[in-house]
């Protein structure tokens, strides 16, 4: 090309140079002719030169120029065809159809075809890469969203727990204060009790001493009672002796009376004496009996005294033992009270320290609570960002889905293929429903697929019951439903191109979905209907 262009320029300048040279030579010759010399020769020479110039110009300039113009026009036609092909391809590209755009480029030159195909393939790869990346981003965003949601919930639970711990710690501090107060009061009570215990111990020592004196007194009484008992025994022995003497006296008196009686009248006076002696002995015996009776009472009393003193001694011993035991108990109690007072003092100090520590903990917990709250807010913003990122990823996916590429991941391409399957069978509803059923069965992310005639009325549909469950009835979906006012239907009817809607909330699932609509065309490429596919975003992004 550069060579041809240079040659053409040289030729143009060559023609001009010849004409200029011939003109200059002709002018020189006319100048010479005016001098009258050799005029004819110069004219002839000039004419020859003019002829030669004309021939040269014709051969060197005009003929190449004609050829060049002819070539240029051919080139123009070719360029126009290629431009139209490119325009068509770019038009398809503009609508995102990176498959259809390759069809017109076959008319281009091999190099251009290769270039366009390479560009299209690169763009397809780029779209596919963006699609995959957006899916990964969506998945990651979903994971981040889920994780950050869990973190938000965890942070909320932590915040609640910290609040509860704070309340508990405050209660602990308050309780510690109460305990400190109680411990102080307890220490005072213990000190008072210790003083009372000291007084009690002193009184008890007096009581023990008194009980000892009482015991000694009782022992003295018992000893004296024993002496009295021994004295009584001696008195008994004396009484026995007196009784015996009285008895002997009585017997003597009786014998004397017998002897006096035997003496007759001479013994009367002796008999009287004997009788008096007998009576005296009788009275002595009666007196002895009386004394014995009194002594019995006396000894009985002494015995009672002995028994009483023994009981008293035992009681005194018991009281003394109990007093000593009580004294020991009071000593222990005093020790315990001293320990209690000391422990209460220590408890008071410890609880004071605990209260201070608890207050510090409360302050720290409040800081932690604020920190957790801020963390929760950050996580919340993180969640919102993740949600936003997920939405962006979905938008990118939908954006990539606006391109039709030769991939199973291209919903437009898939929709084109499905609409192509329906091309020859729209009149047979059974076949249509079979195709729709196959589509739903093979693609679990589809909520519903349906065929709308070119007037915008649904003629057939198939629902993915695994996604929709039993919510079909409330949605009002059914054959005969009008779709003519839907933007996607209008767009497809107008442009005959596959359309993708922005996400919206599905009436069937209350979840986000989007619709892909593809024109169903007959063999003459006239639209005979629109194939609509409602894609569940959640299931689709999961895939």
């Amino acid at each position, binding site marked *: 090309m550069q060579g041809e262009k240079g040659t053409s320029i040289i030729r143009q300048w060559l023609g001009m140079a010849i004409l200029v040279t011939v003109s200059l030579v002709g002018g020189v010759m006319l100048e010479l002719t005016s001098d009258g010399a050799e005029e004819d020769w110069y004219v002839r020479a000039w004419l020859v030169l003019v002829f030669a110039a004309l021939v040269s110009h014709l051969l060197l300039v005009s003929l190449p120029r004609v050829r060049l113009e002819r070539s240029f026009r051919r080139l123009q036609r070719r360029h126009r065809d290629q431009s139209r092909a490119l325009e068509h391809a770019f038009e398809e590209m503009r609508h995102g159809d990176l498959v259809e755009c390759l069809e017109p480029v076959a008319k281009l030159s091999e190099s251009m075809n290769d270039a366009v195909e390479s560009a299209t393939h690169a763009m397809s790869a780029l779209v596919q890469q963006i699609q995959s990346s957006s899916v990964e981003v969506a998945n990651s965003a979903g994971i981040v969203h889920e994780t950050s949601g869990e973190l938000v919930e965890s942070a909320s639970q932590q915040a609640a727990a910290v609040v509860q711990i704070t309340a508990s710690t405050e209660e602990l501090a308050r309780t510690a204060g109460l305990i400190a107060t109680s411990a102080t009061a307890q220490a005072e009570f213990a000190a008072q009790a210790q003083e009372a215990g000291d007084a009690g111990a002193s009184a008890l020592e007096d009581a023990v001493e008194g009980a000892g004196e009482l015991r000694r007194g009782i022992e003295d009484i018992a000893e004296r009672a024993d002496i009295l008992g021994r004295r009584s025994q001696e008195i008994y022995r004396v009484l026995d002796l007196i009784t015996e003497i009285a008895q002997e006296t009585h017997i003597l008196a009786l*014998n004397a009376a*017998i002897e006096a*009686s035997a003496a007759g009248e001479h013994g009367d006076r002796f*008999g009287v004496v004997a009788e008096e002696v*007998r009576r005296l002995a009788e009275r002595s015996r009666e007196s002895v009996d009386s004394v014995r009776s009194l002594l019995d009472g006396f000894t009985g009393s002494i015995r009672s005294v002995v028994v009483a003193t023994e009981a008293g001694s035992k009681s005194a011993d018991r009281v003394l033992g109990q007093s000593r035991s009580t004294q020991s108990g009071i000593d222990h109690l005093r020790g315990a009270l001293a320990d209690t007072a000391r422990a209460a003092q220590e408890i008071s100090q410890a609880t004071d320290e605990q209260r201070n520590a608890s207050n510090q903990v409360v302050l720290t917990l409040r800081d932690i609570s604020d920190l957790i709250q801020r963390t929760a807010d950050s996580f919340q913003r993180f969640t919102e960002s993740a949600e936003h990122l997920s939405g962006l990823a979905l938008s990118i996916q939908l954006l990539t889905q606006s391109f039709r590429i030769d991939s199973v991941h291209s919903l437009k391409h898939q929709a084109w293929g499905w609409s192509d399957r329906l091309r020859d069978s729209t009149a047979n509803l059974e076949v249509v429903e079979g195709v729709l059923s196959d589509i739903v069965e093979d693609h679990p992310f589809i909520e519903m697929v349906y065929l709308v005639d070119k007037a915008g009325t649904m003629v057939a549909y198939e629902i993915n019951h695994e996604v929709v469950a039993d919510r079909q009835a409330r949605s009002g979906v059914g054959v005969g439903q009008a779709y003519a006012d839907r933007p996607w239907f209008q767009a497809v009817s107008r442009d005959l191109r596959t359309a993708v809607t922005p996400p919206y909330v599905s009436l069937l699932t209350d979840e986000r979905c989007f619709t892909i609509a593809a024109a169903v065309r007959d063999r003459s490429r006239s639209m005979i209907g629109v194939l609509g596919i409602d894609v569940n975003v959640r299931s689709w992004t999961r895939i």
Partner: protein
Amino acid sequence: MWKPTDQVDGGIQCLMVRSGGYRCGIPVAAAKQVSSARRLDRVPGSDPRLLGLAQIGGEPVAVVDLHALLDPDGAPGGSHELTVVIRRGDGTSAIGLAVDEAFGVAVINGEVRRHDADPDVVAGRCEHSGRPVFILDPSTLIAERDGNGKGAPNAG
């Protein structure tokens, strides 16, 4: 049968004793001695009324339970604090009567009557100080002691 020879002023001079629930009068002439109860040596195979042998006044004296003599069918009892020794005519000791109590010498003025149911050793009974009193017959006691009677136990 005892004849009341110990009459004084129309009455009988007796040593008044008690054995169990019985009050008895022993004619003073038959009474030799009153002594306190002594150690008794039992005589194997003898009459149950014979309490044993005692040394009184240097002589062995068979001591008989007066209560058992008066009431052979009654239960034995009494404190037997005294022994009244009955004398023989020659002044020796014949038998000892174990009694619970001796009240002294008294004159029994009432009429002495003997009942059929009275033992042989009883001469009769009368009233003294408002109480019934058995008047013992010392001769019967001595005869029994000597084996001539049938009322008193034979101590050998």
